[in-house]
């Protein structure tokens, strides 16, 4: 097993076997500023993600994160492990909402391999244990 710098980004396929786990990552507690930063970066200006008054008037308890924020966080963590150019497909299903104050944990593991690819299943959970996102990817492997 090679030692990889935590912030290194693999440029070539990585050796992956069934049961290998993605380095676990935790982000948060998330703030409204995190949502606004992603709104500016990614271009999602739906006011339910930054306008507290509008969100409450719509019956929500507060603003909540756009799904593409944690889908994006998971995507770069997957890329940091398997290499951005090695990802063949990435699929995310949003299963819960992310609120200000939430702390998110990103996990994943290899659930299958063939000669040249690995299937990785991933989850993003809130501090309560609730899964807010379930994801799968197929990546090229060494």
């Amino acid at each position, binding site marked *: 097993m090679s030692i990889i710098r*935590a*912030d*290194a*980004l*693999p*440029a*070539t396929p990585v050796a992956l076997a069934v049961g290998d786990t993605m380095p676990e990552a935790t*982000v948060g507690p998330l703030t409204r500023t*995190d949502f606004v*930063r*992603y709104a*500016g*970066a*990614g*271009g*999602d*200006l*739906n*006011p*339910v993600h930054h306008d507290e008054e*509008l969100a409450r008037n*719509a*019956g929500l308890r507060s603003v909540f994160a*756009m*799904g*593409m*924020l944690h*889908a*994006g*966080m998971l*995507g*770069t963590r*997957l*890329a*940091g492990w398997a290499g*951005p*150019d090695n*990802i*063949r*497909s*990435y*699929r*995310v*299903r*949003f299963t819960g909402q992310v609120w200000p104050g939430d702390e998110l944990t990103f996990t994943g593991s290899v659930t299958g391999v063939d000669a040249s690819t690995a299937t990785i299943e991933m989850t993003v959970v809130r501090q309560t244990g609730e899964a807010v996102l379930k994801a799968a990817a197929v990546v090229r492997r060494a």
Partner: protein
Amino acid sequence: MNDDSVAGRVLETVTFPIERGKLYELARAFHESSRAWYDDGAAAEAGFDGIPVPPTVTALADHWRPGGALGTALALGLDITRLLHGESSWDYLVPVRAGDQLTATTHITGSTTREGKRGGTMTLIMLETEFTNHCGELAIRRRDTLIETGAPA
């Protein structure tokens, strides 16, 4: 949502650049520490022939849509306060680098309604967007399911 004959419609086509500054903003928003996500030197040192992009880089198209990220939903007549993102998936065919220019063409591939758990009728809209690079190659194919939850009784 009050139009159930939307399948097959081409929603819009938008051409947009993959800019280093936006890649830096995305890296910060994702709490990423690797400089290779936005720095030419760090990307070259890591072995890349340019700055690589996050798997969800396709979001950058939304800056260039006349109605923003909500343009699609608004064009479909969806109520944005009842709008949820159900699912997204991407197929990656050709690597994308900072400096590339992508053209995104979005089609509606289907729509359906279903009784929501909290009452009211949910509407599901399926979209497919093809991202072609400046060399004319299909680089990324993205599929999305949007959900408009039922109106409160």
